């Protein structure tokens, strides 16, 4: 499409738009004193740079408006300028607590686009890392949420266990965060020697650790006061808002993409979906704790049944040839040069590929115009959609409950703003 043919994008005056933001949508009555309070963007309890425009009546939240965009990095646009191979690095940095999921959603979308068969071993390795990442993300959520409720030691225990997981990530992929482990066609490297042993030890320890956490928090009076029967939102409201993940499951809807639309061999594993009953903060807490146990079970099964074989597809059109062939085969060298300099060209078309992320449905939309770079890449980030549910959750609650509810919502601003 030439420049003249492109539809003109209307220019937006952001200053004008900001003026039109109404501070409060509730009618101001005669004897009522409403206070508009800015919470954030540098509030520690907002788990990132989230600005909350609260309308308070005394200590009670009457209305709330999340204002986002403080860590907008334009990653989706950056991806349009990268080869399909290089996009993996960019999408890694969207949701900084679930980098393996970002890679998986993107690679899954591209693999669907080019119709590539993934070897069984690669799928199992992906599952192992995805579930480790899920536990890690939940541990960070648990540590920081407990910190918001005033439990200092939980933070250290969670980060102690998180350290074990990022150590495993460093061992297999070379980096603790943003590992660039999953590539279109499989994974970059096989797991190293000693990884399985270390992972087995971790799987043995982790359920006991979750028990310890639960002993500390489950029946603690402060936790109960802040969580139980607080922030109740019924299933239908959540469905109307498009909320997915532990928030929806806490309200009793067992929607889990790992079961509903199994990807990457998730149907090979036996695991359960924890659901809550009424959908208050306590259910959200319990669902996530139970999910950690289920993730450990999935890792154990994947490690037990890890099939032998290649960890990356053998299609030379899309995947780099193995290194040892470069010195001996001219053809492999040509493929290598062509893939690195130019990248592969998927057929024109578009695809949406959704996976279950620790916070809900992470979807990746890729549109290909036949060139070696994606024409458009969009991520449906669960934190962004779930943040809408904050208003029905915290309406007519205390400010202290707002902090607890926001913690149980578990937003990651890197994913929201992208």
């Amino acid at each position, binding site marked *: 499409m030439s420049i003249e043919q492109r539809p003109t994008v209307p220019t937006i005056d952001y200053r004008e738009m900001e003026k039109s933001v109404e501070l409060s949508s509730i009618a101001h009555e005669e004897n009522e004193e409403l206070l508009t309070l800015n919470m954030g963007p540098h509030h520690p309890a907002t788990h990132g740079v989230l600005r909350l425009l609260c309308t308070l009546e005394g200590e009670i939240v009457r209305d709330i408006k999340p204002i986002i965009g403080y860590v907008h990095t334009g990653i989706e646009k950056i991806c349009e300028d990268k080869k399909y191979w290089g996009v993996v*690095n960019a999408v890694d940095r969207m949701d900084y607590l679930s980098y393996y999921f970002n890679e998986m959603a993107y690679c899954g979308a591209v693999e669907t686009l080019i119709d590539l068969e993934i070897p069984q071993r690669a799928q199992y390795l992906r599952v192992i890392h995805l579930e480790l990442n899920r536990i890690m993300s939940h541990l960070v959520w648990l540590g920081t949420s407990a910190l918001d409720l005033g439990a200092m030691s939980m933070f250290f225990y969670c980060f102690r266990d998180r350290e074990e997981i990022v*150590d495993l990530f460093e061992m297999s992929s070379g980096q603790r965060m943003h590992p660039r482990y999953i590539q279109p066609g499989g994974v970059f490297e096989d797991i190293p020697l*000693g990884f399985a042993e270390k992972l087995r030890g971790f799987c043995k320890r982790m359920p006991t650790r979750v028990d310890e956490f639960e002993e500390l928090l*489950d029946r603690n009076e402060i936790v109960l*006061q802040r969580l139980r029967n607080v922030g109740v939102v019924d299933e239908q409201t959540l469905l109307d808002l498009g909320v997915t993940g532990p928030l929806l499951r806490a309200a009793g809807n067992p929607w889990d993409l790992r079961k509903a639309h199994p990807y990457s061999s998730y149907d090979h594993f036996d695991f359960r979906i924890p659901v809550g009953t009424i959908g208050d903060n306590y259910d959200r807490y319990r669902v996530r704790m139970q999910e950690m146990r289920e993730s450990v079970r999935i890792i154990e099964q994947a490690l037990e049944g890890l099939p032998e074989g290649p960890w990356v597809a053998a299609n030379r059109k899309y995947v780099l040839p193995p290194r040892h062939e470069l010195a001996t085969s001219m053809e492999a060298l040509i493929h290598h*040069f062509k893939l690195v300099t130019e990248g592969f060209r998927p057929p024109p078309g578009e695809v949406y590929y959704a996976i279950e992320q620790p916070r809900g449905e992470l979807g990746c939309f890729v549109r290909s115009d036949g060139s070696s770079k994606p024409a458009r890449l969009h991520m449906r980030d669960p934190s962004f959609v779930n943040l809408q549910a904050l208003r029905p959750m915290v309406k007519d609650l205390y400010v202290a409950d707002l902090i607890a509810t926001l913690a149980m919502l578990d937003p990651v601003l890197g994913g929201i703003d992208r």
Partner: protein
Amino acid sequence: MPYNPGDDVVLVQRGPSPGGAGGAYRAFGETLRGLKQTFQRLTEGTKTIQYPEEKVPVYPRFRGRHKLHRFEDTGLEKCVGCSLCAAACPVDCIRVVADENTPENRVSAGERYAAVYEINMSRCIFCGYCEIACPFDAITLGHDYELSDYNRSDLIFTKEMLMAEPLDRTPLRTAGE
């Protein structure tokens, strides 16, 4: 196809209601139980590392500061200036200017060599694509992670810096550890 997870759904437990007589008990009893848990952790010992004195060991696959390599026997550079690393780099932080080898001045084993090889470390994201792209194993990502500096211009690493052995070596973990 309607979605029915069937027996795979498990209902999570609900905790007791807060407040009341149970709440008064829990304010002491459960707090003591929690304290028992935290005091048990004392026996585990510390997990922290006294960082500047004591460095965190890294795994063999760790991706840190880049290194350019020479052939051990001939001393010639492995890099032939093909710029494949620069093409693969997703953030465009590598600059390679190639030049021809002459019989009098032989730098690399191939026909050409890299006259200029610069990596802008303030842009590098340590993805390791340069290492994967290089067909001659000339560039690898080493294990050093202490790369901060006071000036941005000092963070543009030249070929000499990348060729030299770094002074402080980062401790390496073995695979079984």
